C-alpha cells in the first residue's frame, strides 16, 4: 500500500468516525461559568454527577462572559445552537426573538414552574408571558465592602448615606496608601452602566421608564453623574477600572467598596490567594441612600438557562430537559449556588440554605432590588454602549455632565425609536 492510498484510507476512516465523535454527547451546554477558572471545576462536578445519575453525557462549551452573546448570535445564524445555554439575566430580551428558543411553560407547565421557583427568580426568565428561561442562580448587584480596609481607615460601620459614604472614601484615601477607595467602573460600557444606573436610582432618577420612554435628561440624573464625577476629581475613584479590576483590588486590600453580585465572594477567595480565609473581610452592605430613611437600592441579578430546539418545541423527557430538571433539583440547587456564593432559585432550596450567614447578610442588604431598566429592551447592547460612552466621557473630563446627559437622552431616544420600528 503506497502512502497516497494510506492517506486516503485514513481520511475515509476519519470522515466515517467524525460525525459519530461529534454526536458522542447527548446534549451540549454553553456556559460562561465553565470558562471561569475559579468555577470550572464546580460545573464539571455537576456534569459528571448528571452523567452518573441520568446516564446522559453533556458536551460543555465554555465561552468567556463577554463572548457569550456573540457566540449565541453567530450560532443562531449558522444553525449550530447548543441545546442549553447559560445567560446573564440582562441578555434574555436580546435573544427573545430567536425562533428556536423554547417556551418552557409548554414543556413543564406554568403551574409546575410557579410551584417550584421563587417568584422573583422565575420572573427573570419571563418575556411577555412566555417562560423563555429558567433561573439557575439569583441575587442582586449591591455594595460590597472590605472590612479589613475599613478598619485600617478607622471606619467602624458601613456608611448609610451618600454623605457618610464620601466621608468614608476620604478616610480610606488618606489612611490607606495606594488604594482606590471606591473601585467604581470607569471602563467597559456594561460595567459603567451598572454603576451609573445604581447612583441614578439613589439620586431619584431613571434612564428609561417602564413604557420605554427615555427620561434620563433630569436634574436627578445630572446630580448622579455629578456625584460620580466628583469621586473622580477627589481621587476617590480611578480611571481604567472594570469589574475584574475591582475584584482584584479588593482581594489585594487596595479597595474598600465596589458594586457586585453575591458571587463576588468566590472571586475574592481566588484573587486574594487566601481562599475561604478571606470571607471574614467581605461585607455585603446596603447601597448608601441620598438621605436617611430612603430605601437602599440594588439591581436584580441572576444566571438563566435557555433551551434551543428545532421550531422551539421540546418535551420533558428530551435529554436537554432532563439536564434542566437535574440542574434545578434540590441536589444541585442546595450545592451549586452556595459554592458560587449565590442564592438558589427554587423555593425548597432557598429554605434549605436559609441559615447560610453570607447569603442571609446579602439578602438583608439588598433593599429594593429593581429590574435592570436598560437590559430589558431588545436593543440593550446599543443602549449600554451609549450610556457607557457618555458617562465615561463625563468621568474622564471630556465633556460636562450637562452635555453628557443631554447627548445620552438624544442618542438613547433615537435608539429606542429605531428598535420599536424594527420590531
Amino acid at each position, binding site marked *: 500500500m503506497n502512502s497516497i492510498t494510506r492517506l486516503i484510507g485514513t481520511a475515509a476512516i476519519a470522515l466515517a468516525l467524525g460525525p459519530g465523535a461529534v454526536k458522542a454527547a447527548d446534549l451540549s451546554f454553553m456556559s460562561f461559568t465553565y470558562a471561569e477558572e475559579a468555577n470550572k471545576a464546580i460545573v464539571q462536578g455537576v456534569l459528571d454527577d448528571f452523567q452518573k445519575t441520568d446516564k446522559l453525557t453533556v458536551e460543555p462549551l465554555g465561552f468567556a462572559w463577554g463572548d457569550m452573546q456573540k457566540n449565541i448570535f453567530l450560532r443562531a445564524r449558522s444553525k449550530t445552537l447548543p441545546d442549553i445555554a447559560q445567560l446573564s439575566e440582562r441578555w434574555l430580551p436580546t435573544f427573545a426573538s430567536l425562533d428556536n428558543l423554547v417556551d418552557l411553560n409548554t414543556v413543564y407547565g406554568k403551574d409546575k414552574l410557579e410551584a417550584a421557583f421563587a417568584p422573583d427568580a422565575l420572573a427573570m426568565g419571563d418575556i411577555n408571558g412566555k417562560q423563555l428561561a429558567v433561573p439557575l442562580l439569583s441575587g442582586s448587584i449591591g455594595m460590597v465592602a472590605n472590612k479589613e480596609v475599613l478598619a485600617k481607615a478607622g471606619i467602624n460601620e458601613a456608611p448609610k448615606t451618600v454623605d457618610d459614604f464620601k466621608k468614608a472614601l476620604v478616610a480610606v484615601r488618606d489612611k490607606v496608601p495606594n488604594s482606590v477607595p471606591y473601585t467604581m467602573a470607569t471602563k467597559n460600557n456594561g460595567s459603567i452602566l451598572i454603576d451609573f444606573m445604581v447612583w441614578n436610582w439613589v439620586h431619584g432618577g431613571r434612564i428609561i421608564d417602564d413604557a420605554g420612554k427615555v427620561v434620563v435628561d433630569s436634574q436627578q440624573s445630572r446630580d448622579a453623574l455629578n456625584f460620580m464625577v466628583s469621586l473622580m476629581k477627589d481621587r476617590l475613584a480611578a480611571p481604567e477600572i472594570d469589574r475584574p479590576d475591582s475584584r482584584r483590588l479588593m482581594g489585594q486590600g487596595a479597595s474598600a467598596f465596589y458594586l457586585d453580585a453575591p458571587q463576588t465572594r468566590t472571586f475574592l477567595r481566588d484573587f486574594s490567594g487566601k481562599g475561604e480565609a478571606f470571607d471574614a473581610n467581605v461585607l455585603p452592605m446596603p447601597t448608601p441612600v441620598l438621605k436617611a430613611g430612603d430605601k437602599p437600592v440594588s439591581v436584580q441579578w441572576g444566571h438563566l438557562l435557555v433551551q434551543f430546539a428545532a421550531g422551539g418545541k421540546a418535551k420533558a423527557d428530551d435529554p436537554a430537559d432532563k439536564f434542566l430538571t437535574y440542574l434545578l433539583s434540590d441536589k444541585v440547587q442546595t450545592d451549586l449556588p452556595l459554592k458560587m456564593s449565590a442564592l438558589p432559585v427554587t423555593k425548597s432550596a432557598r429554605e434549605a440554605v436559609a441559615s447560610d450567614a453570607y447569603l442571609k447578610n446579602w439578602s438583608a442588604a439588598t433593599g429594593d432590588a429593581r429590574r435592570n431598566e436598560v437590559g430589558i429592551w431588545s436593543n440593550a*447592547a446599543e443602549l449600554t454602549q451609549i450610556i457607557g460612552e457618555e458617562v465615561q466621557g463625563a468621568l474622564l473630563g471630556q465633556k460636562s455632565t450637562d452635555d453628557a446627559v443631554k447627548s445620552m437622552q438624544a442618542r438613547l431616544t433615537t435608539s429606542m425609536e429605531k428598535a420599536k420600528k424594527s420590531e
Partner: protein
Amino acid sequence: MAVIENNLEAYPVSPHANRGGLKAGQSRMGLLLLLPAAIAFSAVILYPFLSALGLSLFEFTVEMMEPRYIGFENFAKIASDPDVWAAFWTTAIYVTLTTLGTLVAGLGWALIMNQPFAGRGVLRSLSLLPWVLPSTVSAFVWGWIFNARYGVLNAFLMELGLIDFPQAWLSTPQGAMLAVVLTKVWLSIPLFMSFFLAGLQNLDKEQIDAARVDGAGNFAVLRDHILPHLRPVLIIVVVLGVIGNLQQFDTVYALTGGGPVRATTVLSVEVYRRAFEQWDIGYASAVGVLWVASLLPPAFLYLRMLVKGN
C-alpha cells in the same frame, strides 16, 4: 546535412502528447495548482465579501428574524452618522502615525543593524521577536506597560522625575492613541527593517566611501545616497504599511477596545462593534463596504507596482 521536413504532419505524434502542446499542458497544471488556493480564497474571502456587499442593502438587526431589503438606505444613514465619520478620521490619524512611525523606526533600526559590530547577528535575530509574538499577546503586554497602577512606563517616568503621579495613559484620547500607535509600530518594525536591510545590502559601498571622501556627513549620505537608493523599497513599504494599518483590528481592540469613549475607534473596531456588539448586521456591512473601498487605492497601487515589476 539532413534536411528538416517543414511539413509537421509528416512527423509521428505520440498518442500521450498533451493537446495544445507543452505550454497548454503547463497552463492546465498551473490552473490545477491554483485551484486549492482559489477555493480557499472563495470560501473565506470572496463569499463573505459578496455576502457583506449584499447585506449592506438590507436592514438586519437582532430584533428581526429575516433581513429586509432597503436599497442604499444604510449608506444614506452613514452619510449623516457622525460616529462613522469620526471612525474614518480616527483611522486616518492612526494609519498616518503608525505608517510614519514604523517607517522612521524601521529605517533607523535597519541602518544600525547594517553597521558592523560584535553581536550584530544576535541583535538582528532578536529584532524579529515582535514579529514572532502574536499581536494580541503584544497588545496585552503593552496594556500592562501603560497600566495606570502597575505600569512600567509610569514607574520609569516617576523614577526619572518627569511625572509626580501615575498617569492613566489609556484614559485620555491622546494617551490611548499614542499607546495603540506605539504598539503597532513596535509590531511592524521587524517587517520594515527586513525590507530596508535587504535594500541596504544592495547599496554600493564604494559610492558611500566616495561621498565620504568628498566630505559628505552622515545626514548628506542618508539624504543623497541611501534614501534615493531605497526609494523603490520605501514606496512598497509605505503602501504595504498603509494597507496593513487600515486593516488593523486586534491590537486596537485588545488594548483599548476603541476607547476611551471613541478615541481609538478605527473603522475595523466600528464594524466589529456594530456587527457583534449591537448586532446591526446590515449597517455594519455597509460600513465594512466603505472600509474596503478605502483599502482599494493603496491595494491598486501595490498591484500596479507588482505588475510593473517594481
